[in-house]
């Protein structure tokens, strides 16, 4: 069988074997419901408490400020809708960045239909939000600002500490979606003045189907799910202990290895960027050269289309991702690249390479060996060629 190289860690990660090991007792033996009062319940409740402490500690939150959910999508929905409905007496104005994940953007659109006033911030050519724009756009009736920590497509890291400071001064809640960044770059919710934060297990070598939402003490938020009152009434549902145990173990590993791993990935990242831009004519970097996730490369190539690049690389055993129009169900180019001011024809040829824990320099070298040929093969078929 051909060796397959996975370079799509921003889509999802495999579960670290250490995480699998930590989870395994909770599938069968320690299966209890933490709400039960007997031995089995206590055993589960203890594991749940311990997991909550680990995850809270990793972002400098208190354990009771962490609520577990089923996905980053659910966390983001809860944050946006929950804050909106709990604070509508104060106002209905919400500020959102234009490069958020669809679960934020579509929640915002839904809130607009419910009568909320949604306003979008702008980004520069790197995908960066200007904190001063946030300051200027906050009004008396603004109740929430939501800006992601790091963008999932282009990897740009937003100045969330500055935005958080402004929001705190103005008395406006600040939510950040840290699905792509938590475990990769340091986060301190207290220092960064964050009121709500979304983190996801499956982006950091934990299981799928579990995520969390940090909600600072005192933040007014309605729950999305009503029921038995689990998670301090903020998220009813029988608690998914086995996955939460895995999530906590994954966080523990990421935190312990962050410094070293981040250095290793940045070296590989910059090697890819430097080599691609040098070796392949008419190629450009999307996103910020320095303020970007250690594992993210996003480049674009003129005269070729992203989906075609993806399938050529797939045939060579390399798994990457594209946000080209042809690969989207709506046949529209990426809203992130459009917000950054790219033209349609520029956005089509974009390619995202996202590395992770099991990416080796050998994998990167193989990509760099085959990519120039892949691009020139497609350019040979294209009616538009490089002139000169």
């Amino acid at each position: 069988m051909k060796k397959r190289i996975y370079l799509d860690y921003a889509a999802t990660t495999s579960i670290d074997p250490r995480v699998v090991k930590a989870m395994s007792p909770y599938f069968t033996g320690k299966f209890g419901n933490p709400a039960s009062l007997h031995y089995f319940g206590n055993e589960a409740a203890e594991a749940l408490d311990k997991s909550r402490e680990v995850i809270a500690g990793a972002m400098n939150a208190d354990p009771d400020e962490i609520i577990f959910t089923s996905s980053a999508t659910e966390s983001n929905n809860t944050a946006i809708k929950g804050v909106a409905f709990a604070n509508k007496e104060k106002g209905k104005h919400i500020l959102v960045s234009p490069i958020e994940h669809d679960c934020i953007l579509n929640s915002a659109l839904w809130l607009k239909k419910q009568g909320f006033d949604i306003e979008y911030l702008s980004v520069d050519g790197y995908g960066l939000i200007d904190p001063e724009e946030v300051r200027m756009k906050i009004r008396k009736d603004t109740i929430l600002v939501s800006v992601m920590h790091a963008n999932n497509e282009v990897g740009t890291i937003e100045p969330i500490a500055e935005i958080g400071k402004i929001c705190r001064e103005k008395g406006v809640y600040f939510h950040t979606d840290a699905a792509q960044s938590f475990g990769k770059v340091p986060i301190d919710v207290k220092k960064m003045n964050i009121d709500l934060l979304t983190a996801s297990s499956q982006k950091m070598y934990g299981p799928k189907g579990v995520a969390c939402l940090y909600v600072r003490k005192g933040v007014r938020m309605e729950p999305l799910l009503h029921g038995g009152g689990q998670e301090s009434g903020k998220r009813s549902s029988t608690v998914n202990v086995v996955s939460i145990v895995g999530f906590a173990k994954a966080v523990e590993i990421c935190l312990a290895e962050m410094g070293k791993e981040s250095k290793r990935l940045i070296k590989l990242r910059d090697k890819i960027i430097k080599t691609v831009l040098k070796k392949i004519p008419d190629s450009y970097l999307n996103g910020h050269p320095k303020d970007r996730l250690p594992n993210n490369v996003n480049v674009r190539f003129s005269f070729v289309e992203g989906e075609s690049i993806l399938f050529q690389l797939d045939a060579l055993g390399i798994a990457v991702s594209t946000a080209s129009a042809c690969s989207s169900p709506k046949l529209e180019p990426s809203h992130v690249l459009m917000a950054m001011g790219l033209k349609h024809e520029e956005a089509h040829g974009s390619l995202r390479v996202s590395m992770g824990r099991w990416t080796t320099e050998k994998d990167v070298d193989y990509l760099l060996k085959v990519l120039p040929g892949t691009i020139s093969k497609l350019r040979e078929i294209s009616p538009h060629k490089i002139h000169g």
Partner: protein
Amino acid sequence: MAKSFYSKEVIKHFQKPHNYGKIKGYDGLGKVGNMICGDEMWLYIKVGKDKKGEEIIKDVKFETFGCVAAIATSSVLTDLVKGKTIKEALKVKKDDIVKVLGELPPIKLHCSVLAIDAFSEAVYDYYSKKKKEMPKSLEERHQIIIKREANHEH
């Protein structure tokens, strides 16, 4: 084996497309789509005559900017029209292309239309240059295509 988005036949044509490139001294050139939309197809034809003296597509080549489906449908289209009389070649439908490919994801069906249109525009170009009498159906197709293209300009 993983369930794939595209059929094996689509991937085969995409990996090794037939008849791509330019024809020097072509007789007709059809250009449809544009880079803004994400699909652009240029189709070159060279016209010859068969034993009965009827005009045939002696050679055909394509250049395509676009996704896997756009490249695969371009390749199949060239196979289907090559060697046919112009009259017969103009009868090739998008369903004929899809049939060769096994199947196309529904969202990609428009790519096969693009290939058909590129060919019909190439013949239109040839007839116009030769100042031949334009068949009514070809003129109608041309009008539909240019109208659609104009709408696609952002």
